[in-house]
């Protein structure tokens, strides 16, 4: 047998922390806030037909333990709740934005175990043991993350709606280390749409952090 590379999340965490994430959590005894959440998502009024379907099929509750911005939480959620909705609606972390809700815009980008992902296409229940960092978790107290500073300095936004996703995505991009040229930065930031067209300044902000 030749070489083998293991890309399992636990392996990457091992190299990062010197201990597995699962081991780390069990050391903590999965302490942290426990939230019991309303079992049903609120349905839009007037959606009566769907409402009946739901009455017929009761919601299923999933319990999940995950770390959000350094704080380990146990959430009891309707299994349908996405990571995005859990962050925004249940935990009040409204920095992460909902644009399309279908993986097509990048507004919901967060970091999961250090990697940028779309929180709208992730079930909260699939994040057992994950370490999530949102835009709220990037700054250290009053000290902004270098990427936040760079976005400010280079005017990397206009209305700001896409910005939390852009910043989290940019942090992920720098860590991945595959974007060297402007063209590569643009290509590897293409998962974040900016309706205001702040793209040039976003590229400038990312280059500043890369060169720091």
């Amino acid at each position, binding site marked *: 047998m030749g070489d083998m590379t293991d890309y399992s999340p636990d392996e990457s965490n091992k190299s990062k922390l010197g201990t597995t994430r699962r081991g780390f959590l069990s050391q903590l005894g999965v302490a942290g806030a426990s939230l019991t959440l309303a079992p049903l998502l609120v349905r839009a009024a007037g959606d009566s037909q769907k409402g009946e379907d739901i009455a017929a099929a009761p919601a299923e509750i999933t319990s999940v333990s995950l770390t959000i911005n350094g704080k380990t939480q146990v959430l009891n959620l309707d*299994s*349908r709740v996405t990571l995005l909705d859990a962050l925004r609606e249940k935990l009040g972390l409204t920095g992460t934005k909902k644009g399309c809700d*279908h993986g097509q815009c990048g507004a919901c980008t967060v970091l999961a175990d250090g990697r940028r992902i*779309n929180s709208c*296409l992730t*079930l909260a229940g699939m994040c057992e043991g994950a370490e999530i960092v949102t835009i709220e978790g990037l700054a250290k107290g009053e000290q902004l993350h270098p990427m936040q500073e760079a976005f400010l300095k280079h005017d990397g936004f206009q209305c700001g709606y896409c910005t939390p996703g852009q910043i989290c995505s940019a942090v992920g991009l720098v860590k991945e280390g595959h974007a060297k040229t402007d063209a590569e930065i643009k290509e590897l930031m293409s998962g974040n749409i900016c309706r205001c067209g702040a793209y040039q300044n976003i590229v400038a902000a990312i280059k500043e952090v890369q060169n720091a």
Partner: protein
Amino acid sequence: MEPFKLIRAQDNLQAIHSAGIKQSKFIAGGTNMLDLMKLNIETPRQVVDINKLSLYKIEEMPDEGVRIGALVKNSDLSYNPFIKTHFPMLSEALLSGASPQLRNMASTGGNLMQRTRCPYFYNTDFACNKRLPGSGCAAINGYNRMNAVLGTSDQCIATHPSDMCVALAALGAIIYVQGAKGIRTIPFADFHLLPAQTPHLEHNLRQGELITHIEIPALPFAAKSHYLKVRDRASYEFALTSAAVALDVQNGIIRQARIALGGVGTKPWRSLDAEKALIGASATESTYKRAADLALATANPYKDNAFKVELAKRTLVRALKTVEGLS
């Protein structure tokens, strides 16, 4: 979204057992499954989360083939040094798909199983034989610019959307699946099904069968290979046409060739006819054009997608020229 029970499987057998019942579905990255569940196109009662299974390895075989775990993320696979050197077309195909965030989520197995992006399949207000067998096909007489020209039937003309699968078709990958009755392998060409009269049947997996690995047999000349994707915008967009090409040229003569097309077929479209036309011929543009004509010979265009026939030929010729230029 309909309510469902989420089961976090800890090993293959538990996953297979849990998914053995009807209305049960695996979820890996979730990028296709959850998308379709939100639209009530997929309505599983039970969702089996397979992300804790140990299927994250890329193993290089002694003969230079490779075995890829079903949960390896599209991003990890695309940047893997062995893949980049030995099968560059696969790396390029992956990097041309979706976005960096989605590639960080999407798994090898899930990519293989992703469903069509036909707009009528996605919109439950329209007839669609794939979504609701027997309801009709809104695309055949509708707006069908993105639809297929190869392998279509009078029941469905939806394209297979995957870029990765086009490269795997060209490379002749083998799919390893595990079910309640054990392990079996499926050659790539037999994995996806043509729509024929049953467009809702898309692949050869049985209920509860889990894709565990994909093997790419050694193919030394694929070190010179390329994936070219043509689309409406420069990035983050599905293919209008694409071509995965590998060539072995010696002294101006083509010794071996692999050709597959994307964006035009109802499944990832390997063209053995085009390969045959290339092998033994001189590596010239006229040879490439002849191969491209053969690859599209059975094309059956519709109202809005006739342009794909010529575009696919040009895509293939350009990809062949690019590979010829690699040395």
